[in-house]
């Protein structure tokens, strides 16, 4: 059975929020016993998605959850914004796709850094990205 050991919601509005969330996720990953490589991967994924929330989503929140199944520990992060949404998700997941300032590997690349990746988006209503990294 999966239990949520701890959860917290943090704002994602400014660049300072982005830096803070990266640091919080790093601390939680260390606390969950993640290796240095897994810490680096989940913090990098956080940075990509949090920047999307701020820049493309017009700001939002991230919910952090420290997970345990008894034998396994993990981290779940849920990024939510109420921005313009993504009209073509399949296209947005393709490497090299970009709408703005990024390098266009935000979503496809980020998916490779985590264990589970779920994205839902409604044009005009916003975007929700849920990632989970298991130790």
């Amino acid at each position, binding site marked *: 059975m999966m239990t949520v050991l701890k959860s917290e919601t943090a704002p994602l509005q400014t660049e300072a929020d982005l830096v803070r969330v*990266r640091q919080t996720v790093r601390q939680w990953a260390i606390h969950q016993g993640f290796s240095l*490589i897994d810490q*680096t*991967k989940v913090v*990098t994924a956080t*940075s990509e998605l949090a*920047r999307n929330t701020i820049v493309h989503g017009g700001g939002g929140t991230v919910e952090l959850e420290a997970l345990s199944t008894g034998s396994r520990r993990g981290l779940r992060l849920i990024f939510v914004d109420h921005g313009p949404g993504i009209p073509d998700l399949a296209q947005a997941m393709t490497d090299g796709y970009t709408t703005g300032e990024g*390098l266009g590997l935000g979503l496809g*690349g*980020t998916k490779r850094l985590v264990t589970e990746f779920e994205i839902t988006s409604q044009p005009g209503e916003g975007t929700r990205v849920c990632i989970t990294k298991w130790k």
Partner: protein
Amino acid sequence: MERIPILQMEDVLLVTIQVDMHDKLALTLQDELTAYIVTARARGVLIDISALEIVDSFIGRVLSNIAAMARVLDAETVVVGMQPAVAITLVELGLSLTGVRTALNVEKGLAFLRAAPAQGGRHDDRPQV
């Protein structure tokens, strides 16, 4: 305002990134470094990222931009000291750091810059006729 110091060692500029950079700070560094290359008549730029815990697509793009701008200004850029975990993550993310040369540490980066001046050389380096 917070800034990243740029040191000059003869014709090489040395930048050590030691903070978890805000996006704006990274862009400020890009602008200042480009201006400094011209005023210092620098031939090389050495960026030490050994203290950086992550390189995401934004920082990757800033590093590529710095290298591209430096090249147009006849200077070579070498990024040194990348942590192994950062390198592994970069590759999985799919970031190729286009046009950015890397070296293991500052010493090796400097040796490269000293050995390989920017292609073609400068007009003012040509022997007088």
